[in-house]
Every structure is written in C-alpha cells, then in structure tokens.
C-alpha cells in the first residue's frame, strides 16, 4: 500500500511540471489569439471612427506614439473622432505575439495608403504594441511605430 502511495507521489512529481508546461503553452496560444482579435477590433474601430469600441480596448494610461509625437488616450481618441479620415487602407503584413505572464508584446509591419491633397502616398511601418492583462481583460497600454525605408 505504501509503495503504491509513493508511486503516486513519484508520478505526480514527474508529471506536474509537464502538465504546467503544457498548460502554459495552451494559455500562450489562447492569449495570442485573443490579442490578435483585439488588434483587429482596434483597426476596425478606428476605420469606423468608433470611439466607444476603442475606449474599451485602450487603457486609460495609453501611450500612443505616432510620427514621433506622444499622444495620450484622450488625444488619440479626439484625433480619431474629429479628423476627417484620410487613411484609405491599412494592410497588416504579419504580426508576432510574445507573452510574458500578464504582459504581451505584438511586433509587426503594416502598409498605409494615404490620400492627402489629392495625392496618394504609401508608407510602411514597423510597430510594437504592449498589452497588459488587467481585471477586465487585456488592454492596450502602449503603441509605437517606426517608419521603414521605401
């Protein structure tokens, strides 16, 4: 009986780290899928000028860096709400999601096609978005991009 009990303990000792690792891998995949969905919701919300949807995605302390300028959540939402949308198209070229416990980093490249003063301009950007899991779920705390050479 004692031997069986200790065998049980041994199995538990060997299997517990394996099951934790498997659980973490699954959680990582689920997190990546959840964050990719939020990134899509952000793009769609911005395209529709849907500030209510964006308000739920962005953390109140969001730091947004665009064209080398730092914007708060309020400034970014105001820009989306008040400016005439001139961006014709944003195409994502691929993203990578890395999770670090309750933080996640999204690295990717997007292409932007703008129409300004009747002229079409094309640009490519490499970006890093930082997401943090809070009580209400994953929220965007920082987003920044750097221009890629043409």
């Amino acid at each position: 009986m004692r031997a069986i009990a200790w065998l049980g303990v041994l199995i538990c000792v060997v299997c517990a780290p394996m099951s934790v690792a498997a659980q973490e891998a699954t959680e990582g995949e689920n997190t990546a899928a959840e964050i990719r969905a939020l990134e899509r919701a952000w793009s769609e919300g911005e395209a529709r000028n849907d500030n209510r949807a964006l308000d739920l995605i962005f953390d109140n302390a969001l730091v947004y860096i665009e064209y080398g300028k730092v914007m708060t959540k309020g400034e970014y939402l105001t820009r989306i709400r008040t400016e005439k949308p001139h961006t014709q198209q944003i195409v994502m070229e691929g993203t990578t999601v890395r999770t670090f416990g309750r933080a996640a980093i999204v690295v990717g490249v997007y292409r932007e096609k703008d129409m300004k003063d009747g002229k079409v301009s094309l640009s490519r950007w490499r970006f890093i978005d930082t997401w943090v899991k809070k009580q209400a779920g994953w929220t965007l705390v920082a987003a920044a991009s750097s221009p890629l050479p043409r």
Partner: protein
Amino acid sequence: MQGLSVMKAFALLVLLGCAGALPGRAQEVSDADSGSKIVALENLWNQAAEAKDMVALDRILDDAFVYVDPEGRLLTKAQVLADVKASHGMRFASEAMVVHLHGETAVVTGIYKTEGVERGKPFVRRDRFVDTWCYRHGSWISIASLATPVAF
C-alpha cells in the same frame, strides 16, 4: 500505521497539485520604488552600452528582447549586443523619461540622445523611445524597445 502513511502521501500529493496550479508570480511590486528603479536601469543601460559592458546588458535585457530602431529594423537581443560591441566612441543619454506602471509591467517613454562620430563627422541625434519592462524573479527586465525619429 500504514493508513497514516497513505494519508501523508495523499496530503503530499494534494500539496504538489496545488503548487503546480499556483501562478508563481504572486510577489507584490511596490509602485513607489519601481519607478525610480526603472529610471536607474534605463541610465544603467546607457552606461553599459557606452562601456560595452556585455554582462550588465545581458542582465538588463530579457533573452526574448526585441528592438525596433529608428530605421524600422527589427533586432534581437543578440543583434543588439553585436551592434554595441561594434560601436565606437558612442555616448548615450535618456531625457524626459516618464514611467507608466501597470502592475508587473512598466512602459517608459522619453528622448534618446546619441552622440558619436560617423565617417569622420561628429553627429548628435534624438529619437523618441518606448521601452517595456517586466518584473520577474524579483527584478525588472526589459522585454522590448522601439525608437522613432522625434516629430517628423
């Protein structure tokens, strides 16, 4: 007696099961200390890059660290360390840093000043940066950094 051993083994089994289910990062992070610690680490990062102190840089940067430079290039930790090794007489300084704490994650924004000599000509450039830090195993470690030209 044999029954007691079985009970002990069962209790141990339950404890092990519980230990496996714990998230393992329940340490509290003090917001008051964290901000100043992170600013100090940002300055240490600059000093380590200037001095080509690879040991210090290895501790500051997570193995999965990624960096996007002002030209949009994506670099891994190994590539960043190789760039530092290859650099000559560069001086780095961070200005106007602001730390935003989100529990065990921190975002730092600021201006990154680089001074050096390129093709015989001295240069100074300023880029806006965003660094992301994570609190793990009792210390802060940088997981990502992006630099972009200031207001263009």
